[in-house]
């Protein structure tokens, strides 16, 4: 008997990340993918779940002195210093291009004051082609003596609230891991009206040049990313998933499908790849294919069946561990 070829049912991997509609659950992280077009030769950028573009400030910024990056074990440090041409150039020169190509764009905004965040948000409001706004809250708050917005629950609450008041676009603060209580920060973001959470930003670190006897980075400190931070990211998402209702975009060192699934299992709705883009410029597409294969191989219809599954295990009281 002739074997009938049954066309395999295409899995629907689309996700709704707090109002940000993604074709698939893999985004590329801000600062690692430019404005998308830099990677166009290597991957169809419209196929990516969401392209979170380079962080935008109100005015152009030149960025930090070189060297700005250094490789570290299973990771890298960066201190780019938010080099960017400012929000007007983003809207006029980059956004239309991405919009024409059908790219799902998430803007990433950064400010030195709450008012600056609010102003950028109001400028973005109503602009065609922005699916969401990610808030970089790892910036120093100039008015509060340079303390980062993201380390203080009250400041997180205020900045999210101020941005929400200016825009109807979904707002997703990107939480800094450099805090003692990530749950308190997540709750503050939720109370401020956030639609989703992005987790995690880089961990503050440094590297030293023993020949020059000084820090490697021009900025001394930089943000650690890559596989080295994955366990920290997973732990924080695990905690936050159980404490707040917001969908989470999870990332930190994702290099392959197993990594991505770990994030889904601790509660992430979607994942973001950052440093992994430097290793494999088509990683976002490859991850989606591999996730599909995993689901098919395990007879699963959607990621929904996996989401948060690892948080259901009763492990008794969770301690800080040794």
């Amino acid at each position, binding site marked *: 008997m002739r074997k009938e070829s049954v066309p395999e049912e295409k899995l629907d991997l689309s996700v709704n990340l707090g109002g940000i509609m993604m074709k698939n659950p893999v985004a590329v992280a801000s600062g690692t993918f430019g404005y998308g077009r830099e990677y166009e030769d290597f991957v169809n950028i419209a196929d990516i779940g969401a392209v979170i573009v380079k962080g935008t400030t109100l005015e152009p910024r030149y960025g930090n002195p070189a060297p700005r990056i250094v490789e570290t074990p299973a*990771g890298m440090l960066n201190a780019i210093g938010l080099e960017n041409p400012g929000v007007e150039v983003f809207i006029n020169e980059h956004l239309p291009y991405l919009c024409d190509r059908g790219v799902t764009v998430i803007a990433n905004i950064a400010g030195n004051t709450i008012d600056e965040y609010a102003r950028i948000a109001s400028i973005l409001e109503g602009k065609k082609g922005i699916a969401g706004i990610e808030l970089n809250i790892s910036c120093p708050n100039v008015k509060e003596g340079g303390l980062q917005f993201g380390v203080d629950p009250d400041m997180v609450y205020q900045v999210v609230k101020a941005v929400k008041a200016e825009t109807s676009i979904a707002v997703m603060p990107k939480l800094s891991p450099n805090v003692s209580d990530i749950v308190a920060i997540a709750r503050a973001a939720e109370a401020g009206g956030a639609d989703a959470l992005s987790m995690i930003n880089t961990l503050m670190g440094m590297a030293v040049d023993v020949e020059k006897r000084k820090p490697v980075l021009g900025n001394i400190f930089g943000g650690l990313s890559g596989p080295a931070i994955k366990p920290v990211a997973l732990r924080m998402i695990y905690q936050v998933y159980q404490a707040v209702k917001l969908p989470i975009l999870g990332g930190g060192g994702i290099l392959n499908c197993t990594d991505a699934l770990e994030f889904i299992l601790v509660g992430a709705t979607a994942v973001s790849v950052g440093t992994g883009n430097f290793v494999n410029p088509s990683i976002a597409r490859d991850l989606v294919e591999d996730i599909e294969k995993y689901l098919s191989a395990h007879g699963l219809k959607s990621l929904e069946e996996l989401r948060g599954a690892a948080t259901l295990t009763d492990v008794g009281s969770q301690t800080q561990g040794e």
Partner: protein
Amino acid sequence: MPALENGLVLRHIQVSRDMYELEFIAPGIAQECRPGQFIHIRSALENNPLLRRPLSLYDVDKKLGSITLLYKLVGKGTNLLSRIRPKEYVDAMGPLGRGFSLLAPRKTALLVGGGVGIAPLVYLARVLQCQGCNVKVIHGVENRLELVALPRLRQIGVEFVPATIDGSAGFKGLVTDLVVKKVSPHEIDFIYCCGPEPMMAKVSGFARKNNIAAEISLEEYMACGVGACLGCARKMKSSDDEYKKICKDGPVFSIDEVELLRNKKNDR
């Protein structure tokens, strides 16, 4: 268009104490290559080292579809790379960056390389020679055992003068002294230079003094290689506010664009 390719390794040989030549088949990339561009190579499939390594095009055979890279062992990445054997694959991304501008036929080009900085100049020499330029190559090394490009340059058929610190071949002394003392500037239409920055600064000074146009190739820590991460930023002049990206705006720059650092510490 640059591409990602898994290149089948044809040849991988140690050519000096700490330098290797790696030839692999990557037809898609090879067709696109221009002298001065680089290939971003992943040296390990594991996480350490994580990032790709930018390596200059040393030679390209477009008919065969092969790319040859010359690299020096400097750390973990190049060490792991050196273990890849023929018939294995290298994960290559490229060609990336802005290459050298090509001199018009019948003009005379002087190519000055320092150490492993000879790498991008060999493919340049081939292309310039092929299009009918007069090509003179000067290579400065510690001793004659490091004159790794000699057979290839002979095969290309360009004029070649070595400078060795120990005097074991050619001019005895620094390559920059050879340039300043022995080169007749009126015979040269264009200078291309790649090597340690203080050496390139000296060669640039010679070019400027004699009103010869020149291009140099810069290095910097790199992550993405395509202008996305803004990691390999550098101010072209100390008075500039803005930064250029070595990977995308370079690695080749005209000496009029960039202020080179004369001191060895290379601080910026």
